């Protein structure tokens, strides 16, 4: 294909501003999907995406679009908007020359609009500003177009206006893309260099690598080399997503498509790697991606102890379609063998857990999430991913916790409450700017631990839903943190340990002890629950002993029923975790997570 007829672009926006719906209209206009197969947000193909109405994974699709008598090849990538999936956006950007920056006409610019704009600009992409949802009664297309023009440094009349719902303005937008997005400029004659910008695992075909071919050509029958580890394999098939995977004889410079090598080694197709040909290898690999930095950590354990190997295999496979996931084996006295996993945020964590459960038929227990701490002991720096590994006070010099640079976009009228909230969360103001007289953008340095759990909900409730939040990793700062342990019958339960700011420890300890009292069923003996810092007890609760649990009557010799009831009870017990003599239900481990999200006394 003549590169001049190719346009590679992605759609980026704040969450829910209509990216996937706009992609639907592109599919319509180019007749990419048969009418009766079309459904809303067609590219959101995962069940989870459809149930939650959000995009989780970027999706590439090739469209054929006739314009001025020639057929153009448009490679579109729909990206997710949620802050947890920013890594998906940045990977997509590297496969494109242009980006549609989409803004909801009723919402205006929001925090991820800014974040994604900066990413796209830094990646050197041509940015096409578009106001969406102009059909909404509350739409303010003129005002929003002005804000957007100001942001990207364009004239308001250069901002396109569409309704992804009705399709108004979509054809104009396609034309503008052809005009404004540069065609790819790789060298078709040079040795092959193709960027692996994503991957997935197909149970029948193995690893599928998503490629953006920069230079050269790759066919369905070539010997390919993954440049990072020099591993070679035969390509079995190359093709494009149109929108379903369709084989093609070859992919050439400028194309976006996929490669199947039949490799079962899951670690081979590393996202960010460069593929070249064994027969004529490229000299230099393409710049890859910076590994994303996990924001939160949590232990994932199989509810059935025997599923450890299944979980490991599932993580390896999921990692292929979720490059941001990191994990390392760990073990817990309470939960047995599992993995400490790093996630980009709580939504990411939730999605990973749910995908593992659904796609691999697992049942998992997730421990309360925490951020990564650093313990400084003389010249030694110890990274702590699991609160129970935090050394006892007095054995180290000090502790550091991660900080983020947070951007809040809010109507100016809510600036007061927003700043108050940031202050309460140990934030320090960095910058305040006005996007327009009515809208402001504030930047705060905040401890990650303070915003990752309930901050967003509080922000929303204090601004009647108008404020939006984005944040990026900043660095580590010294903090007065302590480890709070939870003890059952005097024995610490590692999975319940948590590291919190000293000022908040007593409230946290009390809330946790109370939650556990509610969740731990009565046992044959009294169960003492304590929250401690070091050797100091900060809260205690008791679960009274169970006194009655017997089937009073054996009616007419029906022993079978009695035994079955007992077996049911046994099954219930089997699903509990035993800590010392205490049976702890799995919900208790999950509930610990909720306490973290909503420490008592801090509710709005």
């Amino acid at each position: 294909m003549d590169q001049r007829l190719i346009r590679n672009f992605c759609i980026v926006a704040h969450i829910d501003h209509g990216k996937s719906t706009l992609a639907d209209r592109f599919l319509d206009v180019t007749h990419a999907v048969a009418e009766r197969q079309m459904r809303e947000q067609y590219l959101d193909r995962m069940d989870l995406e459809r149930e939650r109405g959000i995009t989780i994974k970027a999706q590439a699709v090739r469209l054929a679009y006739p314009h001025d008598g020639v057929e153009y090849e448009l490679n579109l990538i729909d990206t997710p908007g949620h802050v947890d999936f920013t890594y998906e956006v940045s990977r997509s950007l590297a496969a494109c020359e242009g980006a549609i920056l989409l803004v909801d006409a009723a919402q205006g610019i929001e925090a991820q609009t800014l974040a994604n704009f900066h990413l796209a600009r830094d990646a050197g992409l041509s940015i096409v500003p578009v106001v969406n949802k102009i059909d909404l009664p509350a739409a303010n297309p003129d005002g929003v177009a002005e804000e957007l023009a100001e942001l990207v440094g364009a004239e308001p009349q250069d901002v396109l206006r569409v309704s992804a719902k009705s399709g108004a303005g979509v054809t104009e937008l396609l034309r503008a893309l052809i005009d404004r997005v540069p065609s790819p400029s790789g060298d078709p004659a040079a040795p092959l260099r193709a960027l692996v910008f994503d991957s997935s695992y197909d149970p029948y075909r193995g690893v599928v690598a998503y490629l953006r071919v920069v230079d050269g050509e790759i066919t369905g029958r070539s010997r390919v080399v993954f440049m990072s580890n020099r591993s070679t394999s035969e390509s079995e098939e190359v093709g494009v997503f149109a929108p379903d995977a369709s084989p093609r004889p070859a992919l050439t410079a400028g194309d976006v498509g996929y490669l199947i090598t039949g490799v079962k080694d899951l670690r081979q197709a590393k996202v960010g790697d460069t593929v070249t040909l064994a027969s004529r290898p490229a000299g230099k690999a393409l710049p890859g991606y910076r590994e994303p930095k996990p924001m939160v950590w949590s232990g994932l354990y199989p509810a059935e102890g025997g599923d450890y190997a299944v979980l490991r295999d599932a993580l390896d496979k999921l990692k292929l379609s979720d490059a941001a996931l990191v994990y390392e084996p760990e073990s817990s006295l309470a939960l047995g063998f599992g993995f400490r996993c790093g996630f980009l945020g709580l939504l990411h964590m939730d999605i990973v857990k749910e995908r593992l459960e659904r796609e691999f038929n697992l049942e998992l227990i997730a421990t309360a999430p925490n951020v990564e701490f650093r313990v400084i002991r003389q010249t030694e720096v110890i990274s702590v991913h699991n609160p129970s590994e935090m050394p006892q006070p007095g054995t180290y010099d000090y502790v550091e916790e991660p900080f983020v640079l947070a951007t809040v976009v809010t109507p100016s009228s809510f600036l007061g409450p927003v700043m108050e909230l940031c202050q309460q969360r140990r934030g320090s103001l960095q910058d305040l700017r006005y996007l327009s007289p009515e809208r402001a953008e504030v930047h705060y340095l905040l401890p990650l631990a303070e915003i990752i759990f309930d901050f967003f909900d509080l922000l929303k409730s204090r601004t009647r839903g108008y404020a939006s939040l984005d944040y990026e990793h900043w660095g580590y700062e010294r903090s007065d943190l302590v480890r709070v342990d939870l003890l059952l019958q005097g024995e610490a339960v590692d999975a319940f340990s948590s590291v919190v700011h000293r000022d908040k420890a007593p409230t946290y300890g009390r809330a946790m002890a109370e939650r556990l009292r509610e969740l731990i069923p009565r046992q044959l003996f009294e169960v003492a629950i304590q929250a401690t810092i070091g050797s100091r007890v900060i809260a205690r609760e008791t679960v009274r002993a169970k006194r009655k649990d017997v089937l009073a009557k054996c009616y007419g010799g029906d022993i079978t029923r009695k035994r079955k009831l007992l077996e049911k009870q046994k099954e219930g017990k089997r699903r509990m975790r035993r800590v010392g003599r205490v049976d702890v239900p799995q919900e208790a481990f999950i509930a610990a997570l909720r306490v973290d999200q909503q420490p008592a006394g801090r509710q709005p």
Partner: protein
Amino acid sequence: MTPRARDEHVQPGSAGIDGSAGLYVHIPFCLTRCGYCDFNTYAGLEHLAGAYLEGLTLESDLAAPEWRDHTFVSVFFGGGTPTMLPSERLGDLLGSLRRRFSFDPAAEITVEANPDTVDGRALAGLLASGVGRLSLGVQSFDPAVLVSLERVHSPQSARTAFAAARSAGFQNVNLDLIYGANGETLESWRRTVEEAVALEPDHLSCYALTVEPSTRLGRKVAAGMVPPPDPDLQADMYHVACDLLGAAGYEHYEISNWATPGRRCLHNMGYWQGRPYLGLGAGAHSHRDGRRWWNVRPPRQYLDLLDGGELPIGGEERLSDAERATERLLLGLRVADGIPAQWLPDGRATPFVEDGLAERRGDRLALTDRGMLVANELVLAFAAGIGGVEPPGP
């Protein structure tokens, strides 16, 4: 009998060295259905009584050849309310059973009865036909509790029935009591037990009210119309019963059963000890040689199958070794005699003995009063890891 010798035939499935067995006969008729009751019984089905009695005879004919080598040491007419049938008919039924099965001459023969369904004449008739033990469904001496349980008789009719039984000559009478009904207080229960003791019955069964989902009570509890029984209050009530009955000289020989010396219910003991039993009638359960089976529940279906010349069996199970092991703990631990201590691995029971829930008595291990009330938990804890029952958690 030494404890060791007794162990030999508590093994479920061993047919009993002496070939002894129990016979249960189910009579599925009641005046009305009580709100908490999920037994296989029916109000307004009395017109089937004649056919049902014939059915029992047919079933006996079919079953008898299989039980030739067994001697029945107990017979229990349960229900339902067996005394819904005229005493002559019950007498005839007993006679027809005697002709088909071999009875021990000293067999314990019990009939369950509800107040208001028996009078002096009927009781005398039962006694004359060989029934030696009467079990009266009294439930409570507090009228408010009887209303709450939706029982149709009064405390007075219970006293009257008891007096009638005594004057008819019954020397072995049991009273059934229930504790934990909605509205029943500890005090009310105490008075009920005191009144029961004052009558000087030979045997007392005190059952904690259990809410069964399929009953009227179950539905009301599910709908939030009636609170479920408070397990702590029921525990207190249980201990009141233990104290009062113990003081009055009754032996607490099974979780829910107390008896004066020599008056344990032989038939029920058979269930705990794993003695074989044959159940006749709709929904009746049987057990022999590690096989448990039960008849279809609806009386009409029961009769139809018999008309076709078939045993009216509704289902059966053969116990695996693991199930047998669980069962013998489940059953053995209900009884004050307990189980041979060597059934459990060393040390398994120690923490529970320390907590006062179990007790070593010579080479046996038995539950204390407190332990009996949490027998389910203890069986699970004891069974963990033995006989195929896995320990909870890793």
